[in-house]
């Protein structure tokens, strides 16, 4: 796969063993223009994630973590650069294609769960499948399985307001995984939970990661969550300062990445 005429996998550092990359980004820039103020949220991000990897993205507030996640997931546009998801370049896709890509290849977990309050747990979980055209009987069956996987079979008919925070986050996880996506994007998945529930959720995510071989990109502030990931990518002021490639590795700068190409 080539990016800017070069192979990103060769140019951008990935942890050993080098396998098939599923997310590749090169020189991604994103600026928010509020009229009076311009915020450079991403300043030339290069990143590669291999299939099945669990990557935590950490950094102080405002460093661009969530923006990175949104841009890589196709939820937000970018100013320049290249993002390739599972072999498909995002910037050549229109909104419809990006939406289809999300429907078929991605799952999302948010800090505040963002379940639809008017639907029951099982209806929330089956919704992505209905969107991607699965028949309702099949969708219901798989939603039940997904809820069983996260241990919420007995809460299937409850609405979000009737569930605890941890149960809501489990429902979100079930919703994210029900379509068997290649990549799961998680934005502060334990940010709104107590430590015990956080632990349970991370156990669940790690287990699913290992069992299903799905790629997880987790944005988090929590060192405990970071510690459970295969590696931690650190960000500051719109740059990646550490690719988490192991002890003693120098924090990479954009210039270093450029030089590596």
């Amino acid at each position, binding site marked *: 796969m080539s990016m800017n005429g070069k192979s990103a996998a060769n140019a951008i550092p990935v942890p050993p063993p080098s396998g098939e990359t599923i997310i590749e980004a090169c020189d991604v820039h994103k600026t928010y223009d509020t009229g009076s103020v311009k915020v450079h949220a991403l300043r030339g991000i290069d990143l590669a994630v291999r299939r099945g990897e669990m990557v935590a993205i950490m950094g102080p507030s405002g460093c661009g973590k969530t923006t990175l996640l949104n841009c890589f997931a196709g939820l937000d546009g970018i100013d320049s650069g290249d993002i390739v998801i599972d072999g498909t370049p995002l910037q050549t896709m229109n909104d419809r294609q990006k939406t289809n890509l999300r429907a078929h290849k991605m799952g999302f977990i948010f800090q*505040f769960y963002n379940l639809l309050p008017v639907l029951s747990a099982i209806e929330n979980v089956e919704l992505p499948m*209905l969107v991607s055209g699965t028949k*309702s009987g099949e969708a219901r069956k798989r939603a039940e399985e997904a809820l069983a996987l996260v241990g919420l079979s007995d809460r299937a008919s409850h609405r979000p307001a009737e569930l605890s925070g941890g149960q809501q986050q489990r429902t979100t996880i079930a919703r994210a995984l029900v379509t068997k996506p290649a990549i799961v994007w998680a934005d502060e998945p334990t940010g709104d939970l107590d430590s015990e529930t956080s632990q349970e959720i991370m156990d669940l995510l790690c287990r699913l990661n290992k069992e299903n071989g799905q790629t997880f990109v987790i944005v988090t502030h929590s060192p405990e969550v970071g510690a459970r990931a295969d590696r931690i990518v650190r960000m500051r002021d719109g740059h990646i300062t550490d690719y988490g490639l192991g002890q003693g590795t120098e924090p990479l700068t954009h210039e270093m990445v450029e030089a590596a190409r």
Partner: protein
Amino acid sequence: MESIFGVSMDILMAITLGLSLLVVGVVVILAWRRPILTQLALRNIPRRRSQTVLIVLGLMLATLLATAAFGTGDTMSYSMRQAFTAGLGGTDLQIKRVNPVVAQNGPPDFNRPVPAFETKIYEDLKAKAGDEDRIDGWSAQLQQIGPLVDTNTKQGAGQTFITGVGSDMRETMGALRTLGGASFDVASIGSGEIVLDKSAVDKLGAEVGHTVQIVVAGKPNDFKVKELVESTSPTSQFPAAYINLGEAQRIFNAPGQVTEMLVSLRDADGLTNSAPVAENLRGLLDANTFTVEETKKDNLAFADVIGSVFTTIFLGTALFSIAAGILLIFLIFSMLAAERKSEMGMARAVGIQRGHLTQMFVFEGLAYDIAAAAVGAALGVAVGWAMVGVISGLVGTFGFRLTPHVEIRSIVVAYCLGMLVTFLTVSISAARVSRLNIVSAIRDIPDAPKPDSRLMGQVKTPFRQLKARQPLGCLGGIFSLIASLLKSGPVTGTLGLALLAQGWTAPNGFAFHTGATLSIIALGLTIRWLLARGHMRRTTRDRIAFTIAGALLVIYWALPINSLHNWFGVPKFDLGFEQFFVGGIAMVAGAVWIVMYNADILLGALSFVLGRVGRMRPVLKTAVAYPMAAIFRTGMAIAMFSLIMFVLIVISVLTQINQQVDPNKPEVSGGYDIQAVASFANPIQDINAGIEADPNLRGKFDAVGGQTLFPLQMRQPGAKPPTTEPDAEDLATNPGYKEGWRFYNARFVDDGYLESNLFPMMIRAEGYNSDREIWEAIRNDPTLVVIDSSPVIYGELQESQGIGFGPLFTITGVKTEVPTMKPVEIELQAPSVPGAKPTKVTVIGVLSRFSNFYTGLYVNRDLAQQVVPFPVPSTNYFLRVKEGESPQELRRALGTAFLSNGLEPVVIADELKKRLAVSNGLNGLLQGFLALGLLVGVAALGVISTRAVVERRQQIGVLRAIGYQRGMVGASFLLESSFISLLGILIGVGLGLISSYQMVQFFREDTPTIQFQVPWLQIGVIVLVTYIVSLITTIMPARNASKIYPADALRYE
């Protein structure tokens, strides 16, 4: 317009303006004392401009509808005032001989049917009243009704008011206005000259210089047209002509005689001095011979009644729209509160009192209110004028001309009424939304269910607020207390049962049915309370209680109208509009409760059905789930649509009944094609001979019948005396009133008519097997008669309800629902005819209700000789044309053949269609006016959709993240609003059809021939237009929702 719903407009203005100023004053003082709250409140207004526009639109509706209704009423009053006083000029009082139909002394002279008197009487009266300084002018005139023929155009005007005037006319009527706009002095009319008013000009096609003949007793008298003037009577039905007084006395053979004395009063409006001067003049005249009529005052009062009737009809029907508008205001403020929930929570957390929150909402609400009422008043004037334009087009065929006019007083009343209704609603909403849990509000999560409030606590709240010097809080407390009292089963139940009992004993349908409605609601509340004692889940107990109450409400109001009377002996109530209003609201509330409290079942059913619809499944799922989750706002929006649809459907079905009056049916036309009225001044001696003599008419008719309309006094021996006391006017105009005599029209019909008419009977006397047998019996026995249905219907009401109908003639002892009757004996006598004796006749049939265009007692002409001791010529002819002949052509030929008799023939079907067109047009206008109320539903959807887009921004982000395409998000919003509007429309249409079915069944008791027919096409159009308009309103918010970038949406908090 001087009064509405029986309340003087001046008093109404004083009250509404006073209250409005009080409200504004109190709020301004509060706002001034708490500038920070005022600032916070007013800052909200420009926050979301499009939302502000929607709020103002929603709030203006009550004012708009009231102003439009008042504007229409004012225009009608004003135009009628103009029309009714146009021919009077400065004349205020008219003095005439009593009982103008029949002469006092000797047989009447049909060549001059208006009784005349010597001019000396006029001179004497003037001399006697010489010291009456409130009078500033006197005149005398001779007025008769006769035929006019324009010899140039060969056109005739059969029933023209021909007035002979002298130079003294300047003192009373003053000058007339020519068609060119100049002033014309009637005293300048010379010998051989005639002045025609516009109505006469239209009929004759006359121009200045034409020769016009006045035909009296077969003798034509030629006049030259001197001038054409504006119409001097309210409608073109009554053309008028003016000639010199001396000429009039000559041609009508009344030398030295006049028929009227006119008096002009000194005061400008003719109203202040009218009654005392009239009384004074009555004292100077023989009360048995002369009447003094306060013509101007009476005409103006009548014009006001017409205006008031129009306003009442429009305002009455607008009540549904106003009720829907009130729901909209509640909805808007609930939405505003929901939007600001977290900031309100924050404000409470930093120390702002609950009362302050109420005050902030009230400040903001009043600002919207003042602006909205102004916009509503301005738009209301425009809508009112548009409505006047439509009415003008409709009544134009009858010669009425409407001049748009609106009184400042009406605008003030409408503005203040609209503002007060809105303010009250805003205040109640404000008090309601200010009650929030601070933590839930800050976190913007649903409030935990509140424990059932204790009534004593509610009672204390207003006093606590008053102690804390928070008048608005106190007001809110009072509202809450009232709401709590009503929410409490026993209080509502007691109120309901009290009304029920009052309605039963009065008897008063409005009180009875309102009482029953409240009792049903109380039952629901009691069930809920009882279930709560059993610790049942709130949702379950609400569902059980409100489903039962809702179902009972729908069933109660869907019952056949007289079923309670038939089953339990409850009195028979009249069908009043106020009942219709309560019934409509109760049914809609009941149906909406059933739907909303069983939303999950509906949702399940819908999901099951929709689960099979391809890729739209997820969209449909969310589109239905969202509105069903917000029961309060969805229920209110559905109720708004339902209310308006309900009344539109009822009016559509009732209008359909009008369409069933088929002019070609025998019960409407008697099987005749042409009706022709000849002048009393020159009646036709033998119409059959005339037809035979004219080659254009000969052999072209199957039947010709003649009749004479003649007012007689009638009474039913042994009938119960009326319960209403006669007033002075009744006694003055009807010398036999106390003996039970009432005036009613007799129709003296000839053999031709009795042989040929096909009018069917609603009721036949025992022993008669067909309608024809009845008519033949009358032909053979002149003491047998037939009467139209109205005296029987009123008589039945009088008997069952004990209501007296004053001067109306009624027949009791006949049941309209039974097709046979025992013959009823009645007595007739000609009023004021010396030597006339009461004659006994027997009623053997009652005409179909559809024959109400020809009311009266049908009497064989042979009996006329006995009742009225002088010959009575036929003046009203009914003709049936031979098959294949054109009624329109024969109508023209008849007019030409009997021109000198002033015969005015009309094709019955055309005439009835014209009348039906007017009533259908007015119904259409009423529907259009009601449809304005749909704006409420549409605005509600706009508010809901706009709010939903803001409220669900994050959720839209999630949906987009999990794969919803842009179009799917937009479609979801459109489907959601469709779901609300369609459900509302469906409920409204269903309930409207049920109600109108029962109403038609009720009317069928009197008129079995009418059918319940659903105007599906009309309903289809109403439904489609409503749906499309509601869809258009939500397109913008739906588009905005679909345009949201997923990451932006997810970032939004």
